[in-house]
Every structure is written in structure tokens, then in C-alpha cells.
């Protein structure tokens, strides 16, 4: 009979440590425990928000995956917040946020997504999605907020 033995290990290190980051990214996809994902995504998001080397490869992608696929609202919300600083510089982040605004089942996340899109509210894609949400979102508050944003966006030429 053969079996694989899993031995728990404790690893300590700074968030700057690539190995720790790698572990956190793996943990952010831990399907078994929402708590682990929540903590991992929270830490990664905090790194991004603090502007600590949150480049496209790696953490940012992990956050986008969490935003799109995580079943836990709390995890998605943290991922969204972590992506906020990059919405204006990375169109993939912007599109991920737009997708959350269109598709996320949690109104808090959709509301947060609207706020996060503020720096790119002049973008055609953003205005189109806001327009859609303004008329089709189930939540009246989100519809109202979307309309308000659209009203304040100036005429771009």
C-alpha cells in the first residue's frame, strides 16, 4: 500500500518575500476554506493598496481571479478593493471591475465597483456598462447611483 503523507509546516516571512506571496496566491484559491481565502486575498489586497510591487503577473491576477470566481462575498470585496489602485492604469483590471458591476450577485460589491470606476468614468466601456446598470440592475440604489455618475460625466470629444 502506498500513500502520500501530508506534513503541516509553518512558514514565516514578510509580505515582500516572493515565497510568502506565492503561498498567499495559492491559498487564495484554496477551495476548502473561505477563511483561508479571505485572509490570503486580504493580505494580497493590502499589499496592492499600499502600492507594494503589485505587478500584473501574480498578485493582480490572483485578485482578479478571486473577484471573478470566489463564492464568498467577503473575499470578492477584498479583491475588488485591492484592485482599486490599478483600475486606471490596467485595462484588464478595469474590465474585471466592469464585469463585477455587471455580474456580481452582491449589491455591495456592485456598488463598490461603481465607486472604484470613478477614475475611468470617461471610458466608453464604463459609460456603456453604467448605462446598462442604470436601467437593468435589480437594486434601485445602484440604478440611481449609476445614473448620477453618468450625469456628471462631461461630454467627451
Amino acid at each position, binding site marked *: 500500500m502506498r500513500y502520500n503523507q501530508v506534513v503541516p509546516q509553518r512558514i514565516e516571512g514578510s509580505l515582500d518575500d516572493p515565497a510568502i506571496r506565492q503561498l498567499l496566491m495559492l491559498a487564495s484559491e484554496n477551495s476548502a476554506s473561505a477563511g483561508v481565502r479571505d485572509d490570503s486575498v486580504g493580505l494580497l489586497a493590502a499589499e496592492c493598496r499600499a502600492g507594494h510591487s503589485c505587478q500584473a503577473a501574480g498578485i493582480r491576477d490572483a485578485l482578479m481571479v478571486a473577484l471573478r470566481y470566489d463564492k464568498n462575498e467577503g473575499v470578492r470585496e477584498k479583491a475588488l478593493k485591492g484592485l482599486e489602485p490599478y483600475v*486606471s492604469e490596467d*485595462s484588464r483590471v*478595469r*474590465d474585471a471591475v*466592469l*464585469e463585477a458591476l*455587471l*455580474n456580481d*450577485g452582491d*449589491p455591495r460589491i456592485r456598488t463598490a465597483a461603481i465607486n472604484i470606476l470613478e477614475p*475611468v468614468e*470617461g*471610458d*466608453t*466601456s464604463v*459609460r*456603456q*456598462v453604467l*448605462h*446598462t446598470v*442604470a*436601467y*437593468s*440592475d*435589480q*437594486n*434601485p*440604489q445602484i*440604478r*440611481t447611483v449609476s445614473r448620477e455618475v453618468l450625469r456628471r*460625466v*462631461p*461630454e*467627451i*470629444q
Partner: protein
Amino acid sequence: MPFGYCNEREECGAGRRLAVPGDEDMKHLLRPYRSLGVVALLLVASGACMAPAAAQGARILQIVEEPNPLLLGGSSQGYLGVYLTDVDQEKAQALKLKELRGAIITLIDHDAPAGHIGLRVNDVVLQLNGQNVEGAEQLRRLLREIPSGRKVSLEISRDGNVQTMAVELADRRVMEHDVWNKIGTGGDVFAQSSGMGILAGAGDAPLPGAFHMPFFGSSLNVGALVEPLTSQMAEYLGVPNGLMVKQVAHKSEAAAAGLKAFDVILKVGADPITTTADWDRSLRSNAGKPVQVTILRDKKQQTLTLQVDSKRKQGAMQLEEICPAGNGELVAEIDPEFAQELAAQADASAQVLRDQLQAGGMNGFALTPEQTEQIRKQAEKLSETLKSEDLKIDQKQMDQLKHQMEEFRKNFKPEDFKIDPKQMDELKQQMEQLKRQMEDLKMQGFGSHD
């Protein structure tokens, strides 16, 4: 004509989609009505041009036919994608300008040429095609005069450094279409937007998901209306997941491939299909090619060949494709007696709602006599439509509707139906919003269709 699709007399006209108050917080309030009466009333009150029995289809048609206001530009004026302001002394200093002139870019459309060539906020446009720019208004005027497709040269100052950039102005309408098609996720919106589904009530009944048409999602319109399987349905069918085909458009690629309503799409090629986004992606990646679609039909897997046409209609799906006239094979006549029941039920539900609103002191929601008259006329029209003999619906949906009505009858007890003050407040707010939306629609020229 399949149930829920517009009949010839309905004005499924362009330019409207209505926000139906259907917030999840309202579910409790709306539940007893199982959507028919209340939502019908609200739709009518919203100035909707739809009959309740046609609401699902009208919703689809709204999606199909609603031109996004952003797409209504209509001119071939060139589009750069910037918002401009004037330079003043303070800004000139901050932006290290040598002269007190130019136009400061304060907002960029990253989807537009401005974004593509890397223009940034706080860049200052000094020249356009060699002509000095004195201020924002002058540059706006110059830009207005340049048609789309024309290349222009911009001299800009960025943090004091002057550089020249060449850019081709876009046709805004075309650009917006392209951007819209790229978004590619709109179908999922509607799959989740249970609040928009009049017949599905609070969202617990199947609703049309993503109709893959140019307005939302893929421009590769194969004519299949799909929605993800619920977990219960997946379990029942013995598959992990998939997309249920809800409708197949007449003469579409989906129809040509042999797809039928209630088929379950499992794979496109070797790729498993779980969400409407997967479906969109598969269609896009197979544009112009025939592709093997694995489906489940009658609990047996089979493979169909679907030709995904990349050049098929860039515009909206044609009405006759989703409202095939006189398609006797797919449709069943609505039972007139049942139609009358529906109409009566809608009236009764509306009355109950009115009573509840009055009892709740909804003084804040006051319709003008004009609006009342408009609603009355539309309600009459609605009842007529429901009683109309030429209204045909899909037999399966008819059965579903009947089932819903039965459930509604069983469960609905007017004496148990109480609105708590908090919900009443929410309802008031929603009614206020509805009023504003009506006013908006009126301002936009979407008045009565009488």
C-alpha cells in the same frame, strides 16, 4: 409565436428598457403576487409598451432593439476621446507651460484613440495639425470639424516636454459598437437580473439568460437563447454543469445546427461550457468556423456541428427571427379562458396593490391626471392584448405560467399580506424613482404609444 414574444400589434419599439423595481429587498413584498399583477402594474405605470404575457419576450426585444444612447451619435464627426479645459496661470505653472495657452486634457476615454496613443490627463494640447491651440473651446471646435477616419497631428506638452503625436480620429458609433461587443458579459447580467423577469417572479423560476446578440455579449449571434443550469437541474440531468437552450431563433445558425429548446450545451469543441461567458468566448474563438457542440438531449449526449458566422449581422437581430410569424410548429394558441383569467388576475393584483399603497399612506406617490389616463389606457390595451385570440404562446411556457398561477392561487392570502413600515418606505422610494424614470422617459420622447 413563442410565448412572450411581441405580437405584430405590440410596439416593441426601439429605445426603451425599463427599470422594473425588483430589488431583492422587495422580494418579500412581491412574492404573494408571483409577479403577474404587481409587476404588470408597475410596467404599465412605467409607460411600458408591453403586455404582461409578452413581457419576457419584450424584455428580450428591449435588449435586442434598444439602441444604447451612447450609440446614437449619428454623425461621422471624428472622436478623439478627451475632455478639455482652459489653461490659467496657476495650471500653466504647475504643468510647466512656456505660454499661457493650450487645452488641458482632464479626462481620457481609454477606449478611444486618445487612450490608444497614450494621451494622459494633464497633457496640454498646444497644436492641432500645425495650428496653435489657444483654448479648450477652440480645440473642441476644431475637432468637431474633422471627420472620423482622418489622421491628425497633435503637439502636446507633458510635464514641460513638448512632443508630437499622430492619431486617427474614430467613428464614435463604430467604436462604441466594438467596445460593447468586447464587453462580452452582458448576457450574464440578464441571466441574473431576475427583477426584470415579469413571469419568473422573484427570480426563482427559469428566465431567459443570455441572448447572444450584438447588443450584449458576442457579436457572433448564432441565435440561441441560453442560460446556465441550476445545480438542481444539473443534478437531475446527471451532468456537472452546462447551458440550457431556452429558445432557438428561426433560420439561425443554431437552428441550422439542429439545436433545440431544452438541449443542454455541454462542450464546444473540447472546451466545457459552464457559463454564458464560456459560450461567448467559444463563439468568438471559433468565429467563421464550424464547431462541434456537445449537447445533452433526452439524457443522451450527442454532437452537433454549429457554423459560427463572424460576419453575421452586426446590427440587432431581426424581429422576424425571434418572432417568426405563423410558425405553427412551435406555438400553441393561448387558451382564451386562461388569458381572461390572467387579465382578471392582473387587475385584481393591481387593485390589491393600490389598496395596500393607500393603506400604507403612499401620499408621496401621486400620478398626474395625464399619467393616470395614460396608465388606464395602457391597462386597457394590456387587457385587450391578453384576451386577444392572436396572442400565441409556447406550450411549455404556457404550462409553466399555469403552474405559477396555480401556485399563486394556493399561496396568496390577502389577509396575510401586510407591508411593514420599512418596506413601505422602500416602496415609496421606489415609486418616487419610478416617477423620475417616467419623467426621464417622457423627456427622452418615450411617451405614450397610443
